[in-house]
Structure formats: structure tokens, C-alpha cells
């Protein structure tokens, strides 16, 4: 048995990795940094950069030496938003720059002791000569032979007439005092058309990426230099980062949300299960009579009513009109009555149908005929022989439904004002709170994987036919 459990646990690993990959692709690759979306449009690039820094969005995706930085607004340059005298926005992006000196002013100080790269694309240079310069605590990096040191600044000619298009990359290293660092372009002889200027930051390590950042959040295993010398592995506790919207640690928010969620979903789960199974038994007992047919129609009708309608109708009719239940809030157990009722009713249709199918499947098995031939009565057949066999699919399907305890009440919680995980999740969607949402999705998926494991173990325990190999 233990060997089986261990093996099944190991089989979970690829799925968990898959979940990590999918959440990563969804939130990091497709979604990208939500900084602008969450912080709003009128926020300084420095704040955006800090937002990204905290969440690792300013790193390369999976592997790479270079990563973008918000210190230089490339989009503004392409739009012609730099407002340089002597430069004008060109059709199709970029700027036409007359002879003169242009400062490439960054939105905020560059990081000290860091290598940066300017990437400049030219078009139709004509006879122009373009020179890059930088001043302050900065030294050239890369091919230093092309650089000259003149008047306390480093200069490098990027472009001299004769070519039609191209790009130049300039790599510099910012020293310990980034405050006075300034870079710029000098255009001489004729005007030049510059399509694009980008700034990239060099990572100290190519694996210092968003993916690894995410993994280290989930598996915070670190080599620590122990007190008695030597190294040991330390587990720092899973960290889902900080919620932007509430400024709390996500793990803390989730921990606070578990209890309200459980107080809502556990009653729904058990009451729903009991009523579903009992009504299914009623159907099975009265199969092929009008009672059974009524419940079949009834369950399909229940299934067809949208969840929202249950919530709205419950709040309006039972809460507001009849005044039986409080409508909104989480103060005492009375506040749970209505959401539990709505939760049970909205799930009842599916449950009855499902359990009825299971029961009827069993009713027509050969062992039922054997039991009948032995002289077992109708109730004995149903409650002893059929129910015990039906418990196998029922138990496995019940265990697999456990993760729905976690998110099944997404809507209920947010519309009845119960501060559980579902409430947190819906709020996170509304406020584009990526950290929270990613954590909620991830935990939900992991719970499902664990429930799958439990299902298999339960299956092995309940069904004597399953061989544990």
C-alpha cells in the first residue's frame, strides 16, 4: 500500500510541473507585466520598474543575458515624444534628427555597477555622422578600441554616411555613482533618420529569469551557510509575493480566506451530497414510475437555471422580500444560511442526475438478480447490495469534487460578501491583481492533483477488485 501511495505521489510531479508551466505561460508570457494595467497610466516609470522588480517581471522570461528596462521609454521615442529641438517625428515611427546634440535622458537613475546596452536603428543616413557619448561614472564595455576619451566623456562614432540602414549597439558599464550618468547622440553634417532606440540591462546571471523567480517562490529551497560551517538546505516557506491591491502578503491573505471558504463550502458539500444521494435512491427505488420521471425532469430543469439566477432570486425573494435571511456580510452563522441554501440547490440537479445514473447502472447488474433470487427484498437490494457497489463511484467522485470546495463558491462568496478565497479571487480578477490570482489558480490546481491522488487511494481502499501493484 505505501509503495502504491509513494508511486502515485511521484506521478503527480509532471502534472504539477505542467500547472507551473501553464500558469507561467498564462501570466508571464501571454500576460506580461500588469504594472501599467494595475497602477494606471499616470504613474512614473520608476514606480512601474519597482512594481516589476518586486514581482520579477523585469527579468528575462526563461534564460537570457539582456532584459528591458523602463528607464528609457522606447515607445515615446518612436512616437516622437522626446520633444527635442531639431528633431521631428517621422511617418511610420522614429525621428528625423537635424545636426545637433541630443541627450538620451533616462526616466530614472540607472542601477549602479550594471552593464547597459543602447541599441540604435538608423535609416537613410545620407552623409550624416552620428556619435554616441556618455559622461559621468560610466566606462565603455565590450569593444573598447572604438571608443575615445575626450573632455571627460567617452565617445564613439556609430555612423558615417554611405550606408542606407543599420543598427549599432553600444555597451557601457555604469559605476558606483549613477546619479550623474548621461548618454547622448551627436549628429553632424546632415540630418539622420533614427527608427528606434532601445535600452537593455545585462543580467549578472542568465538564469536569473522570471521562470526561476517563479519557481523559487513556489519552492523556496536555498543553500544556506550553516552556523557550524558547512552548507545545508533551508526551506523558507512558500511565498506568493505581495498583493498590489491590498498590499498584503498573498500567502497571508489566502490563509485568512480559508476559514470563511470552508464554513461556506463544507456545509454545501455535505448537505448537497446527502440530498443528492437520497433523491437518487428515491429515483432508483421508484424507477420507471412517475416519481423517477419527475425527478429526471426536475434535475434537468434545475441544471438549466443559471447560478446567477439562484443568487439574485435568493437574495431578492428570501433575503429582501421575505426577510428570512441577511443578504450580505459575514458576521454570524445566520449569514451563511442563504448562500448554503443557494449552493445546495444550484448543485442539486447535477448531483441527482449523476447519482441516479450510478444507482441505475448498478440496479441492472447481474448480482442484483442473484440477490433477488436468494430472496432479498427491495430495500435490502437497494441499501445493501446496490448502495455498497455504488459507493465506489460515489466516493471517487466525491473526493475529486473536494477541490471545488475551494473555488466552487467563487460567485457565492463574492455576492454574499463572505471574505473567502473565492471572494479574494474575484476581487483579484477585477483589480488585475496578478500575484493573488496566480496563487489562487495554482493552489486550486495543486489541490485538484492531490484530490486525484486521494481518489485513487480511496478507490483502492473501497473496491476490493483493484489490485495495488
Amino acid at each position, binding site marked *: 500500500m505505501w509503495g502504491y501511495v509513494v508511486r502515485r505521489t511521484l506521478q503527480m510531479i509532471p*502534472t504539477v510541473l505542467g500547472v507551473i508551466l501553464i500558469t507561467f505561460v498564462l501570466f508571464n508570457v501571454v500576460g506580461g507585466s500588469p504594472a501599467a494595467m494595475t497602477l494606471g497610466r499616470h504613474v512614473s516609470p520608476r514606480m512601474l520598474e519597482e512594481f516589476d522588480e518586486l514581482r520579477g517581471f523585469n527579468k528575462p522570461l526563461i534564460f537570457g543575458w539582456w532584459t528591458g528596462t523602463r528607464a528609457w521609454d522606447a515607445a515615446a521615442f518612436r512616437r516622437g515624444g522626446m520633444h527635442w529641438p531639431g528633431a521631428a517625428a517621422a511617418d511610420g515611427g522614429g525621428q528625423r534628427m537635424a545636426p545637433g546634440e541630443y541627450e538620451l535622458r533616462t526616466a530614472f537613475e540607472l542601477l549602479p555597477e550594471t552593464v547597459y546596452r543602447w541599441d540604435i536603428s538608423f535609416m537613410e543616413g545620407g552623409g550624416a555622422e552620428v556619435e554616441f557619448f556618455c559622461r559621468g561614472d560610466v566606462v565603455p564595455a565590450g569593444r573598447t578600441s572604438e571608443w575615445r576619451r575626450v573632455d571627460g566623456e567617452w565617445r564613439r562614432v556609430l555612423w558615417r554616411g554611405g550606408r542606407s540602414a543599420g543598427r549599432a549597439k553600444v555597451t557601457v558599464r555604469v559605476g558606483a555613482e549613477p546619479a550623474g550618468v548621461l548618454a547622448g547622440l551627436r549628429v553632424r553634417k546632415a540630418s539622420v533618420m533614427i527608427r528606434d532606440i532601445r535600452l537593455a540591462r545585462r543580467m549578472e546571471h542568465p538564469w536569473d529569469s522570471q521562470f526561476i523567480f517563479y519557481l523559487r517562490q513556489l519552492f523556496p529551497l536555498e543553500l544556506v551557510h550553516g552556523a557550524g560551517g558547512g552548507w545545508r538546505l533551508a526551506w523558507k516557506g512558500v511565498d506568493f509575493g505581495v498583493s498590489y491591491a491590498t498590499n498584503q502578503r498573498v500567502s497571508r491573505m489566502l490563509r485568512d480566506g480559508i476559514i470563511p471558504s470552508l464554513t461556506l463550502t463544507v456545509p454545501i458539500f455535505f448537505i448537497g451530497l446527502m440530498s443528492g444521494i437520497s433523491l437518487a435512491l428515491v429515483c432508483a427505488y421508484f424507477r420507471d414510475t412517475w416519481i423517477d420521471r419527475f425527478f429526471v425532469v426536475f434535475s434537468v430543469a434545475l441544471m*438549466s437555471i443559471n*447560478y446567477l439566477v439562484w443568487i*439574485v432570486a435568493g437574495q431578492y425573494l428570501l433575503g429582501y422580500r421575505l426577510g428570512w435571511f441577511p443578504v450580505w456580510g459575514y458576521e454570524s452563522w445566520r449569514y451563511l444560511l442563504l448562500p448554503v441554501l443557494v449552493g445546495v440547490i444550484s448543485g442539486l440537479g447535477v448531483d441527482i442526475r449523476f447519482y441516479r445514473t450510478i444507482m441505475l447502472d448498478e440496479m441492472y447488474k447481474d448480482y442484483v438478480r442473484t440477490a433477488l433470487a436468494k430472496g432479498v427484498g427491495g430495500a435490502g437490494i437497494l441499501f445493501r447490495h446496490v448502495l455498497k457497489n455504488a459507493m465506489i463511484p460515489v466516493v471517487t467522485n466525491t473526493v475529486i469534487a473536494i477541490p471545488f470546495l475551494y473555488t466552487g463558491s*467563487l460567485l457565492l462568496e463574492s455576492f454574499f460578501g463572505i471574505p473567502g478565497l473565492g471572494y479574494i479571487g474575484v476581487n483579484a480578477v477585477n483589480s488585475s491583481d496578478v500575484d493573488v490570482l496566480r496563487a489562487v489558480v495554482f493552489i*486550486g490546481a495543486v489541490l485538484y492533483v492531490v484530490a486525484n491522488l486521494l481518489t485513487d487511494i480511496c478507490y483502492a481502499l473501497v473496491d476490493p477488485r483493484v489490485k495495488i501493484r
Partner: protein
Amino acid sequence: MNTESVESLPESMTLWQDAWRRLRRRRLAMVCLAVVGLYTLAAMYGECVYWWYRLHDETPPYKRVNLAEQYQPPSFLRSPFGGRETGRMSSLERFLHGLKALGHHPLGTDGLGRDVLQRVIQGTRIAYQVGIVTSLIAIPIGVVLGCLAGYFGGRVDDFIVWLYSTFACIPGLLFILAIAMVVGKGLLGVYLGIGLTMWVGLCRLIRGEVIKHKERPYVTAARALGLGHFRIIFRHILPNVFHVVIVTFTLRFPYAIGTEVIMSFLGIGVQGEPSWGIMISNARLRLWHGVWWEMAAATAAIFGIVLAFNLLGDALRDALDPRLRTGR
């Protein structure tokens, strides 16, 4: 086998003819089919209205704000055949006037004086768009991956099973909401959110069916003829498992509609168009003031289409393949 026994068998029919015959015998299924047809017509009418006003660059009636007519109850509750202004009319005139009044906002108006019936019809259009587009995303993914996994087995199968079991792990509604959030609010988010999660169940079913069919003699025969793998999969096996697609489509269509309603209700779905979810969301607050008809119209519209599709899906499943049992 000789002639007598051949005679005693039912006339030979294709699977589809047989299924249609069985379906036709069920009165309830035929009623559902008619209801679905009615909704389809409404959706098509809605589409025409939408494009007509768009091409003429006018505000469509379902968006036209008319504060003078706000909160009008459905016309049949406004005693169309009586009232003050009809006092001096002949009975025929009164009847005609009544008819006209009946046709004026038959389902009443909302808080901005917009016609509820027109909005419900537009909601039908959106619901159909969502159902169809999400199916167009989910069905090809599910069918192709399912066929490949089932037919080739081995590494391909391992990979695809891994892929869909990973997708299946992620809590459904939350996943959809997350996709929609990442893609951005609006219909595109709804399409992608629902479409990219809905293929999982279909893929699993198709894979199972293809595995069963892979061993059948007709596939062996096709292979012996030297047909290519893809020809065998898509020309020989797929038509035999296509009923799974039909049934899944019918049962998933209402699911997509319901999810769209929830997403629009939460404010991350349809923007600026009268979807059923938005109608419910608006009507929810007005309900407190006794304006029930907007709510009633939207919920009844949803209930009707979902019920019709659910019942039709069940009947289709029984007709096409009794082995596909009701599952979660």
C-alpha cells in the same frame, strides 16, 4: 446467411439516418429542436439588426436611451385595450389601437427607456456568438489532439494526456477568468477563456473512441492498403467517432452560454453590448425597486435555451450512442 434472415433485419440505414429516426420518435426532443430553431432565428434577426444599424451608422433601438419611457412594464400589463385615450374610439379602432400598444415595448423598458425585447434578442445574438466561436476554438483542438493521441499512442499520447490532465487540474471558472483577465476585458477574453478550457473533455472522449476504433478491422484494412496515417485518421476513423463531437457540442453550448453570462455579470465579459449577463447585472439593482420584467426576460431567455440544449443533448446522446453515459 440466407434470404429469410436478411428479410427479418431492419432495412439497412446509415448511423445518422437511424439516429434521426430514433430522435424523431421523441416528442420532447423535437420540441427542444424547435425551441433551438426559434432561438437561432432570433439570433440571426439580432445579427441583421446589429449590422443594419452599424452600416447606417445609427444608434440601434436596443441602445437608444429614452428617459421619457423608462421603467415601462410589459405591454400586456399596461391594459392595451382600455385606457384613457381610447375613450372616444369605435371598438374596431380600439382593437387596432390595442394591438399597436401591444407591439410597443412588448416586454417593457429598462431604466434608460431601452426596449427589453430588443435587448433580449441582442443577448441571444451574443450568446450564439459565444457558443459558436468557443466551439470553433475548442472542437478543432480537442478533435485533432484526441485523434493524434489515440491513434499514435506512445510518446504523443503521453504528451497529450499530460497536457489535458494539466488543463483539467486548473479550477474551471477561475482559469477562464484568469485567461480573460490576461487577454483583456471583452468578447475576445470570453472566447479564449471558454474555448481554451472547453477542449479538454472532448479531447479525452475522442482519444478513448479512437483507441477503440484503431483496432477495428477496417483500420487494419486501410493500413494494409498503404494509406497514410493522416488519411486513416481523418477520413476513416474521424467520421466514425464524430457523433461524440456532436453530442459534446450540444452539451457544451449551454455551458458556454452560462459562463459568458457569469463573466459579463462580473464585468469582465462583453462590454457595451446588451448581453444577458449585463442585463441581469443591471436588472439586479432595479429589482429592489420592483422592476422585475428585465430580470424575468433575461433569466427566462437563458433558462429556455439552456434547457432546450440540455434535453436535446441527452436525446442526441441516447440516439447516437447509448454508451456515452451521463457523467459530471
